[in-house]
């Protein structure tokens, strides 16, 4: 099977429904394993920070969540683009399934960042460019979720949400580069290309957590997309066969 025919078949909801189950299961176990290893490494094995002591450990949840908040938005933007241009039903379903997950990652990033900010910075919240653009990202997610469900016809909802997602995607580089472009209270990125300003003994659990969050998202998005396409194809023969065997 060539890549092109594979992609073509993947675009067909019944085929996707069939193969996504074993993949989703595998992603779930890999994600769970990585997150457990990352938490053990981050909370027990990593040494305390020279300035922040044990307080820095919230990084192991904050950084992966913030990274996922940007990554999921890019997934939605790409899926929206494909859905708008090539009218691929599966892409619309992936975008709709991803939006609540991205909103949740963004909320976790905002809350953990706020709890981290109080002891270290001296405040829960400041309106600097990084924090404000991340908050805008959260509202963009909410907009995509509500717009998607606001129309009688699901296709209209998909289209409206896709346009908002493509416009909103401009916020992703703004969040990422805000700490370089403007003077912010939030510190700059600890990653410069492939090098990091985090000591190796503290860095590896973070990378493991980030990989774990990716697999966790991969599992959830496959699962949510499965129910999403079942709902959307309810009156088709294959879907009825799945629901009532």
């Amino acid at each position, binding site marked *: 099977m060539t890549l092109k025919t594979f992609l073509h078949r993947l675009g067909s909801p019944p085929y996707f429904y069939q193969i996504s189950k074993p993949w989703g299961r595998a992603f779930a176990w890999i994600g769970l394993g990585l997150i457990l290893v990352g938490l053990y490494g981050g909370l027990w094995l990593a040494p305390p920070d020279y300035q922040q002591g044990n307080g820095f450990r919230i990084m192991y949840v904050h950084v992966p969540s913030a990274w996922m908040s940007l990554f999921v938005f890019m997934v939605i933007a790409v899926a929206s683009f494909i859905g708008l241009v090539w009218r691929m039903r599966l892409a619309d379903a992936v975008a709709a399934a991803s939006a609540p997950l991205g909103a949740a990652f963004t909320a976790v990033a905002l809350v953990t960042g706020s709890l981290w900010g109080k002891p270290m910075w001296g405040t829960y919240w400041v309106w600097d*460019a990084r924090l404000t653009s991340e908050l805008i990202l959260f509202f963009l997610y909410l907009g995509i979720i509500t717009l998607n469900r606001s129309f009688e016809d699901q296709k209209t909802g998909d289209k409206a949400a896709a346009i908002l997602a493509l416009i909103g995607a401009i916020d992703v580089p703004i969040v990422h580069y805000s700490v370089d472009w403007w003077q912010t209270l939030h510190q700059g990125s600890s990653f410069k290309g492939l090098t990091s300003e985090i000591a190796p*003994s503290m860095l*590896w659990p973070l990378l493991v957590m980030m990989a774990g969050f990716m697999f966790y998202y991969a599992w959830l998005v496959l699962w949510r997309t499965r129910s999403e396409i079942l709902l959307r194809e309810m009156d088709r023969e294959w879907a009825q066969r799945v629901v009532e065997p």
Partner: protein
Amino acid sequence: MTRRHQRLVMVLLMLACISAAVGFALRAFNGDLLYYITPTQLAEGKAPAHGAFRLGGIVARGSVHRRNGSMTVHFVLTDYHHSVPVVYTGILPDLFRVGQGIVVKGRLTHGVFLASQVLAKHGAKYMPPGIHQPRARPAHLKMLALRRSLREAPGL
């Protein structure tokens, strides 16, 4: 041109227009998006003429003074080119220390910055205690020391 091509062109055009609009807007806002200004920017007259603003810098070595039994603390914020004396009454954040990046909010009165809020910035680096404590050193020396310590730290 097929309908699919038309849609592709429309979506790409939309994206190009929006990117241009946001790009120009960000350029126009550039100065206002600064959360704080540095002592050098203050010396260049970039501070607002009226009202409070935020000033960010490094706490200068040997500049922190506090009278016994008083909540008022005096220190100097510097960016190694210009310095501003600061007065603040209240509780300082945990990370307040010499050589630390600090953002203060307040007003400049007769050359002294009267701060109503003191926030600590922390760096992008994380490391175990005791390897290197590069305090109160110029930023480029800190970076060199850090790179060295990262290379020598036992990896996993």
